[in-house]
């Protein structure tokens, strides 16, 4: 009997993306189809090879609409992962489970949206008439954007550990430096200094300045997941899935988990990390480079602590620009991240991890063995460890 583990059972064999922009000029469905086709071409597979599709519950392009456009004829697995950007690595976990169990052979995961030119997540006030139940505890008081939900949580972390907004700014500086040398990044050629960060306007005082907030983007990203054996026969170096996990904990809300005793951590990510290290059989020190979900900078510091790269309250000192930059001990977000490259709900972090495994990143890290990817934070979330084997 095969061991009950997801370790090394599946691999990402193809990646695809559209351009990242502020106004794609086409439908979200078209972006999804373009990204999926690009990922299949990258892998050297045809639509007829695909028998599984996974996306986000928030995606507007249903699995069968994408299948109908691609000409995918026979599908044995289709599902959607909830909780916004927390779904990103979760799509790959679902795909890997399907491949490992023989439910499907080739699964595409995709996410495509016009989050800048269409419905902007931070601009809910213009389109809400009836509040959803969960938002009814917050919106009447003017707490109704992702930035504000994150900030109320992060303020508690700042207060407890003496963390300042300038500490968060280092994450933006690192990400924008990496974006500056990635031609696909929106902020290609436009690095920032900590002084520029500190003089950018407050979005949510005293936690988030403009340059702490990820951009809003139009675009699509897709991944092809298949067995490690099949991936070895395809066009690209397989990015073997050494571990994939989802995680949630008691009293989780969608970005407003204010009711737990401790408000200084991201316990959902703790659950993910614990599983990733156990499944892959490695420790944080074995990670060559990481993509840490960076919708808002404070939660990058908190992730470093939650995942065990440093102790509680230590990230403000541990997370130096040198350590997190290309050439440092733990280069993060080498594509520029959601702050610098594009905000494709975390799926563009997975493509960058695959490029690092293949050795084709614009900001290639020397001798890559294991790459960590995390998904949306402050929500039920997910993570991956990809390996070069």
């Amino acid at each position, binding site marked *: 009997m095969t061991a009950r583990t997801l370790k090394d059972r599946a691999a990402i064999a193809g990646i695809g993306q559209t351009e990242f922009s502020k106004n794609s000029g086409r439908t979200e469905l078209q972006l999804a189809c373009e990204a999926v086709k690009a990922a299949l071409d990258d892998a050297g597979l045809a639509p007829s090879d695909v028998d599984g599709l996974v996306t986000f519950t928030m995606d507007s392009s249903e699995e069968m609409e994408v299948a109908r456009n691609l000409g995918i004829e026979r599908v044995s697995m289709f599902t959607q992962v909830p909780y916004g950007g927390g779904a990103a690595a979760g799509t790959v976990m679902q795909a890997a489970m399907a491949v490992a169990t023989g439910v499907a052979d080739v699964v595409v995961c995709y996410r495509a949206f016009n989050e800048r030119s269409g419905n902007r997540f931070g601009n809910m006030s213009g389109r809400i008439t009836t509040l959803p139940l969960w938002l009814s505890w917050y919106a009447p*008081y003017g707490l109704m954007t992702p930035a504000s939900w994150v900030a*109320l949580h992060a*303020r*508690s972390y700042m207060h407890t550990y003496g963390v300042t907004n300038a500490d968060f700014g280092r994450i933006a500086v690192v990400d924008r430096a990496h974006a500056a040398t990635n031609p696909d990044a929106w902020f290609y050629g436009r690095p920032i200094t900590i002084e520029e960060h500190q003089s950018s306007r407050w979005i949510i005082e005293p936690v988030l300045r403009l340059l702490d907030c990820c951009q809003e983007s139009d675009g699509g990203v897709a991944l092809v997941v298949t067995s490690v054996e099949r991936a070895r026969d395809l066009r690209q170096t397989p990015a073997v899935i050494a571990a994939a996990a989802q995680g949630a904990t008691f009293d989780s809300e969608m970005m407003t988990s204010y009711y737990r005793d401790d*408000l200084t951590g991201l316990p959902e990510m703790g659950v993910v990390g614990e599983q990733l290290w156990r499944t892959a059989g490695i420790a944080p020190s074995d990670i060559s480079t990481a993509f840490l979900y960076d919708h808002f900078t404070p939660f990058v510091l908190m992730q470093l602590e939650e995942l065990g790269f440093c102790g509680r309250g230590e990230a403000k000192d541990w997370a130096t620009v040198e350590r997190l930059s290309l050439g440092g001990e733990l280069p993060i977000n080498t594509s520029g991240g959601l702050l610098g490259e594009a905000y494709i709900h975390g799926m563009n972090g997975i493509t960058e991890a695959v490029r690092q495994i293949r050795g084709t990143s614009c900001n290639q890290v020397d001798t890559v063995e294991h790459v960590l990817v995390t998904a949306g934070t402050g929500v039920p979330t997910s993570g991956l460890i990809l390996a070069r084997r």
Partner: protein
Amino acid sequence: MSSRLAPSMTADTQFFWDGVKEHKLLIQRCGSCGLLRHPPRPMCPRCNALEWDTVESSGRGTVRSFVMPHHPPLPWFEDPYIVALIELDEGTRLVTNLVGIAPESATIGMPVEVHYEEFDDGLVLPLFAPLRAGDAS
């Protein structure tokens, strides 16, 4: 009078808003083990009992966290305004506005008390203000 977005409610949460209308801050209490919980929900996470009643909060608590949202501007608010997470003396928490104090004077840990404000269409919200001197007992 000004307006705010009105909360939605279900059979699980209506008692809270009914209470606020009568200037009472009600906390849901498990009918079996006595655990207090907020936001309200149908089942006790500790003992799984479905029976519940409510207790009236003293209306006093402390500021656990607070922020000043500046962008995007919202039609219901004048900048600056304070959104705070309050921990009630009874132990449950709720998000609200901190009023009657300038942002630069507010601090985490400061004692506060409930203050009811009426908005358009009969909406009443429980806002919080600094505990008045001499009120601390």
